[in-house]
Structures are given as structure tokens and as C-alpha cells.
């Protein structure tokens, strides 16, 4: 059981969300799927005075094409994102996060904003230049996700993530998704790699390799005149930090499987050998 007591707010509109934020005792936490908050509260690692449940807010549950963009509410579960078929790369990534049962509870927003470092759901969104809608000081503010995600989603205090939007053109681009694990199929990643073949070239986003997920920034990656192996080497040299070393894998092993995965992804997306 959760040893602390807290108040529970379930707003059903943005106006009520603003009211809940004004009235809730501090500190409070936003609740979507709740898997992380409940787990941490049961372990005594967090003790909020209130939780604000976002799941009844229409903007947080929307899943629709509008004005050339796919609008995905932050309270959509990984299962909903996967079974909709609207964003195949996101669906592929979502199906490998945790297990099938937890995917029915874990939300897009929860996975992106959570404290667990992998945040794999962010990868397709970074690749597709997604925009994020926030509820900040009573207003909905939208900004490019890449501008406010640097390993973790940078949010002002008391700001809720409401939705994510992706332009339609990205939804049908060829993609590759690979998740490398040490033991069981359901496991934290040694490496999760998502790749997209955009008109200007291959894009990559990675989780599990370093201490945070990131979009690969390497000019050589999109250079078709270079062989995949050369481009993979260039990507390894452009990493934002050294690969992680832990009980699952050494940094050298992670770098090795990353290089192999990048080379393979490029070859598959460009229809060529290594």
C-alpha cells in the first residue's frame, strides 16, 4: 500500500485543470497512467500532497488527424498508440516498452516525462520533429519537442504535457526500429535505435546507449556517398557522451552493438549492403 495520504483531483476540462493546479496542496504531481507514481509512492520515494489525474481531459486523450497533423494526447496509452496504426514507428517502439499488460497503462506522456532514463517513446517523436502542447499558467502553449527535450523534458513547474503532434508526412516514411536486450525479450534496453528515412537522408534517435535518449547529430549520417560502415563510425564519434557501462553491458559492448545497428539500419533504409 501507499503509506502517505494525498488528495486526488480529476479535472474534465482545461479550465478545471487550471482550477486543480490553483487549489491542489503542494507538492502535487500530474498523474496519467500512474505506474511510476504509484510504484515510487509505495516504495516511499515520493510523497505528494496531491495528484492531478489528466486522463479525463479531452485534449489528453485525443487521437486524430487534424489539419495535416497527427494529434496524440499525452494520456494515450502505449497500447492505444500501437493499435491505432497511425504512426507505425511509434507503434513499433511502444510494443517493446515494458510488457503487454503495462502497455495498457503506461501513457505516452508518462513514458516521456518519467524518471526512468530510457523514455523510448520519445525516439519517434524526435525523429519526426514533433511539437508538444503544454498547459502553462492557464494557457495552452505549443513548442517544438526537440527545443524542450534535452535528455529529459524541460518543463516549468506546474506545467502539464497535454499532447504531441506530428506532421502527416512523417507517418509514412520508411523506418527501422531495433531493441537490443541482454536477457529476456521484455527488458530494459542495452540499445533502442529508431531510424527514419527522410527526404534529406537517414535520421537516428537512440536510447539506452548513454544516460539519456537523444537525436543523433552527425552530418556524415545523411551522406549517401559514404558506405554505411563509415557513417556508423562517424556516428559513434559524435555521441553526446561516452556509452554507459553497467552490470548489463560494458561501454565497449554498447558501442559495438550501436555501430552494428546503425550500419544495418542505413543499409536497410537505403536498400544497400554494408
Amino acid at each position, binding site marked *: *500500500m*501507499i503509506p*502517505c*495520504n*494525498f*488528495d*486526488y*483531483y*480529476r*479535472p*474534465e476540462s482545461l479550465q*478545471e485543470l487550471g*482550477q*486543480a493546479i490553483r*487549489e491542489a496542496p503542494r507538492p502535487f504531481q500530474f*498523474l496519467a*497512467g*500512474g*505506474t511510476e507514481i*504509484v*510504484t515510487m*509512492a*509505495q516504495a516511499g520515494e515520493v510523497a505528494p500532497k496531491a*495528484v492531478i*489525474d489528466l*486522463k*479525463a481531459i479531452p485534449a489528453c486523450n485525443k487521437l486524430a488527424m487534424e489539419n495535416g497533423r497527427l494529434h496524440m494526447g499525452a494520456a494515450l496509452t502505449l*497500447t492505444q498508440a500501437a*493499435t491505432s496504426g497511425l504512426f507505425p514507428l511509434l507503434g513499433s517502439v511502444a510494443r517493446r516498452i*515494458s*510488457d*503487454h*499488460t*503495462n502497455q*495498457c*497503462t503506461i501513457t505516452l506522456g508518462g513514458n516521456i516525462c518519467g524518471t526512468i532514463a530510457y523514455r523510448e517513446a520519445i525516439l519517434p517523436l524526435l525523429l519526426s520533429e514533433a511539437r508538444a502542447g503544454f498547459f502553462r499558467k492557464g494557457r495552452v502553449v505549443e513548442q517544438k519537442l526537440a527545443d524542450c527535450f534535452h535528455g529529459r523534458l524541460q518543463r516549468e513547474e506546474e506545467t502539464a504535457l497535454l499532447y504531441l503532434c506530428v506532421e502527416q508526412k512523417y507517418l509514412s516514411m520508411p523506418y527501422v526500429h531495433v531493441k537490443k536486450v541482454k536477457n529476456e525479450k521484455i527488458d530494459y534496453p542495452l540499445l533502442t535505435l529508431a531510424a527514419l528515412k527522410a527526404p534529406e537522408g537517414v535520421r537516428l534517435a537512440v536510447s539506452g546507449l548513454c544516460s539519456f535518449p537523444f537525436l543523433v547529430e552527425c552530418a556524415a549520417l545523411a551522406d549517401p556517398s559514404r558506405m554505411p560502415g563509415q557513417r556508423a563510425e562517424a556516428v559513434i564519434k559524435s555521441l553526446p557522451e561516452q556509452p554507459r557501462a553497467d552490470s548489463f553491458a560494458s561501454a565497449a559492448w554498447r558501442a559495438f552493438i550501436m555501430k552494428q545497428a546503425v550500419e544495418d539500419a542505413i543499409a536497410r533504409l537505403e536498400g544497400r549492403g554494408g
Partner: protein
Amino acid sequence: MIVYKGKAEITLLVNGRTHVLWVRAADVLLDVLRGQLGLTGAKPGCRNGDCGACTVVMDGLPVKSCLVLACAAEGKQILTVEGIGESPLAKAFSEARAFQCGYCTPGFLMASLRPFAK
């Protein structure tokens, strides 16, 4: 807007029956099912969302009841292993002796109830 402070009265729909219960906002569904409704089929295992012994079906999909706040389950249709009775799935498990100690078998049954769309 729903606001629950301290202990609050909530309504849960479990196995086709409506129950009015007093719960803390911090009570998880697993403890409410077992402690207040006597539905002890769902089991506390890891209490961390890993083992699945607490699995129930909520609005047609399996969820780990140790990770769901009871008040967040309001308005949902909850199905526990007690609610599937002598279903073909339960009979198949029994006939095939598809269990060892049986503690987490309810979790297996509820997770197996609905095939996942590919």
C-alpha cells in the same frame, strides 16, 4: 471536477456489480478488491508492476491492479478472475494442469483473456 480528500466514497463496477466503497485516494485497486470486496483472486506479488499476479481486466484490457489507484478506476468495467467462473479458458488451464503452486494463475488467466491486436 472530481476531488477526493482524505477518505472518499467511490463507486466501482466489478464483475458486473456496482459497489459503493470508502477508500483513501492513495489506495490501490488491488488492496480494495481484496480487502473490501473479498475478491482475493488477484494476488500481491512484487507490488511493482513486474510479476503480473495482480492482473485484472479493466475496460477490456489487462492491467496490473497494484499500479492502479482505486479512485482512478471509477467508471471503468473491472473484471477479476472471480468473474470469469467456469470459462473455457479457466477449464483449459484446469484440464491441462497449467499451474504449479497456482498463486499467480489468476494473473495468467486475466492476461490471457483477450488476445492482443497485432
